[in-house]
């Protein structure tokens, strides 16, 4: 029975367009308990919280399966308002505040205290006057419980980030009915001293009997304040731990997965490479959300070089920068020759190819047939599949040759489609990704950049894509640089793996290294600090 538990989530499952993001997740929280939720990007933390908080996107994409018991009743919140009413508060990762309003106005928004006046007598309650005095008092009370110094009359846009975060928290605790508070990375943007205050506040709230669900990437915080730690991976609960009986290292291990380590190192021999094909020195890339701050590395001819790291740390920026898609600076030597940066055509001409992580945005012509998608780059960059007329004055597209080439790749990569004339928009995610690969292979590249090759495609297609890449590497000796958020897949395919943290390479490890070491690098800790 649900006795003793404030929240009981039972076998919650959710898929987005056939892509399973949560599978049979059970989560129990008692009143006054602090539960830490950890996992890699895409592990399903946010989706789980969105389901609990009744975000509309969940219902727009087909709802979820499983039951939620909250406060002794079964619930299925269809909007966030229902969740708020029931006593669930949420502090979002991105601030949900109105910048031009003061702290008071933000905290009291839609819960304003009002006085009657004569207009309201006629037109109803919506015409009541605001009782500023009472509202300020309430706000001050909420701020006092936080034991912080926050000016209630300051505009949110003038506040330092820390104070904005406090305003959000104050808003949630001001609701008298709040019984459960979800905090989605509340300390991510805060300085250490500010983060400490937040942690203190969280503890205080829990002592008052409010249950807390706490999401963070800072493992130490979890160890410090949580009563219970839940590790999510690939949409499943990996492990439930008690902070006293575990360590940051063990949590990291569960986060990135341990069973696979044996399997990976077992079936793959370490390969040896001599020649350097790509040498990157002090590369800076200005890619929004994936900034690269001076990375240097070498890639050997014929190897598969993996780049891993958490989202937003810059692993995707590296390939995008070298391919000239985002402004970049630094030196890139390809086959010993310096490669001109910020020039996509030049990169392609020199024998580099790129399978973008932004498949639908940048990788495909969705409203054009497969054949165009496969052949377009080759045609534009290398002038293949072109019939020349009038002494090269007229360059006509050779549709027949293009169709032949496309059919060849449809067979080779087993792309499921009606014919090469079908529009790419109509294909499934996995098959679209195969079209992207075909486009890259058709260029006969010497070096291939692949970013997030398995993002958003189902498990079977994942395997196929990875196998195709490896096969291509082995048969043609093409060097591959693969960036991915999924460490498992990097370990399965790469010869060496670089982990990027805060725009820089935190370390390069062989795939056989312990998962925990990868996990620590991702979180910005080098192996030396292991004990901390």
């Amino acid at each position, binding site marked *: 029975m649900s006795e003793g538990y404030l929240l009981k989530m039972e076998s919650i499952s959710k898929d987005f367009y056939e892509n399973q993001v949560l599978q049979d997740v059970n989560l129990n929280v008692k009143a006054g308990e602090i539960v830490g939720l950890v996992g890699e990007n895409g592990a399903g933390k946010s989706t789980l919280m969105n389901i609990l908080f009744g975000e509309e996107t969940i219902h727009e994409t087909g709802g979820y399966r499983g039951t939620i018991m909250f406060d002794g009743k079964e619930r299925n919140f269809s909007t966030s308002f229902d969740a708020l009413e029931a006593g669930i508060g949420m502090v979002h990762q991105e601030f949900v505040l109105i910048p031009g309003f003061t702290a008071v106005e933000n905290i009291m928004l839609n819960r304003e205290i009002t006085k009657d006046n004569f207009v309201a007598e006629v037109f109803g309650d919506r015409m009541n006057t605001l009782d500023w005095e009472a509202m300020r008092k309430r706000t001050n009370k909420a701020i006092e419980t936080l034991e912080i110094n926050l000016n209630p009359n300051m505009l949110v846009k003038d506040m330092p980030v820390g104070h904005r975060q406090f305003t959000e928290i104050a808003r949630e605790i001001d609701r008298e009915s709040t019984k459960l508070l979800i905090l989605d990375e509340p300390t991510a943007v805060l300085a250490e001293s500010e983060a400490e205050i937040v942690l203190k506040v969280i503890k205080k709230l829990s002592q008052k009997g409010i249950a807390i669900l706490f999401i963070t990437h800072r493992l130490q915080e979890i160890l410090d304040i949580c009563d219970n730690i839940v590790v999510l991976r690939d949409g499943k609960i990996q492990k439930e731990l008690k902070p006293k009986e575990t360590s940051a290292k063990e949590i990291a291990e569960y986060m990135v997965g341990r069973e696979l380590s044996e399997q990976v190192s077992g079936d793959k021999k370490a390969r040896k490479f001599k020649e350097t094909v790509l040498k990157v020195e002090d590369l800076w890339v200005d890619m929004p959300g994936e900034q690269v701050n001076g990375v240097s590395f070498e890639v050997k001819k014929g190897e598969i070089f993996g780049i891993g790291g958490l989202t937003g740390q810059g692993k995707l920026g590296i390939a995008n920068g070298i391919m000239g*898609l985002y402004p970049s600076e630094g030196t890139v030597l390809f086959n010993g020759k310096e490669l001109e940066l910020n020039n996509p055509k030049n990169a392609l001409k020199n024998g580099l190819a790129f399978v973008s992580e932004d498949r639908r*945005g940048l990788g*495909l012509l969705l409203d*054009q047939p497969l054949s165009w998608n496969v052949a*377009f780059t080759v*045609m*534009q960059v290398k002038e293949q599949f*072109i019939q020349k007329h009038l002494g090269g004055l007229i*360059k006509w*597209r050779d549709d027949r040759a293009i169709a032949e080439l496309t059919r060849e790749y449809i067979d080779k990569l087993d792309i499921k489609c009606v014919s090469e004339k079908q529009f790419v928009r109509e294909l499934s995610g996995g098959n679209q990704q195969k079209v992207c690969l075909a486009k890259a292979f058709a260029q006969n590249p010497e070096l291939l950049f692949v970013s997030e090759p398995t993002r958003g495609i189902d498990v079977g297609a994942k395997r196929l894509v990875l196998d195709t890449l490896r096969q291509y590497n082995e048969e043609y000796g093409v060097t591959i640089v693969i960036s991915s958020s999924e460490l498992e897949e990097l370990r399965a395919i790469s010869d060496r793996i670089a982990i990027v943290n805060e725009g820089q390479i935190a370390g390069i490890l062989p795939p056989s290294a312990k998962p925990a070491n990868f996990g620590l690098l991702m979180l910005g800790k080098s192996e030396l600090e292991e004990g901390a």
Partner: protein
Amino acid sequence: MKKKIRGIISSIGVPRLLIGLFLIALFVIAPFVDVRVDTSINDVIARFGMNAVLVLSLVPMIKSGCGLNFGLQLGVIAGLIGAVTSLELKLTGFAGFFAAIGIAIFFAIIFGWLYGLLLNRVKGDEMVVATYVGFSSVSFMSIMWLILPYKSPDMVWAYGGSGLRTTISTEGYWFHVLNDFLKIELGTHITIPTGTLLFFGLLTFIIWAFFRTKSGTAMEAVGSNPEYARSCGINVDRVRIVSVIMSTIFAAIGIIVYEQSFGFIQLYNAPLLMSFPAIAALLLGGASVTKVKIWNVVVGTLLFQGILTMTPSVINNIIKSDMSETIRIIISNGMIIYALTRRMKVRS
């Protein structure tokens, strides 16, 4: 069976089906209200020849993702400059016609280039900005037609002796040079303007051939997904400018073809609303804001001009009052609204 019918309807498209049926109905009714079918057919063909090139001129900009060219007037103005200059030089026949086109192309390149630079700065809002470019350029030229130093007595105001007239006849210069080229007379009431149709065929072939070239393919890719094109090393902004220049040139040629058939060069405010019928015709033909095929031009122009020709004669004879203008406005603006709302549906 039901499925099959639905399939046929959706492949033709509901708007084309309705307008097509309406047009057939008009032709059926025509003899009963004393409207001759053969003269009607003759009119439809003649007007098709007059307008088809203007409609065709919209194609490059749609293909490159610049949307419907609501600034078509800019090309028309380049064409008008070419036409009056050719008259000023007293060139007649084919020499005059091609001189007009040559001069018009020169101006169209300059106008199109500047127009393209502007449109590159307002990506996403091309159509709104283009509308104002079209309107303001017409107003600007209204001043210029008065000031420019044209002297030919056939063109300037009889009193005062300076400033161009609102309507200038091409009679005696290059009136009907294309229409009469290899013309075929079927009976007494139908004349097929072979030259005009052949000329349209030639321009259509040029457009079709261009979109089979490497550059044409690149242009279509830019329209489909500019980010994709950029990642393939294509200079997106330059391709867009080229498409705008092409559209402007074809609009300039289009108006000259129109004038040789119509017999008059109309200046001042006449080009003001030129873009709407052309755009409506193309949309009626099955094009959308982002997708267009050559056959959309042919089908659309035929249907649209068919309605324009038939409604005044047939409907007016039935209800005994002038409805033609009302129907024209309802159809052309209705088509534009229909196409714009359809685009929004796809996006969301």
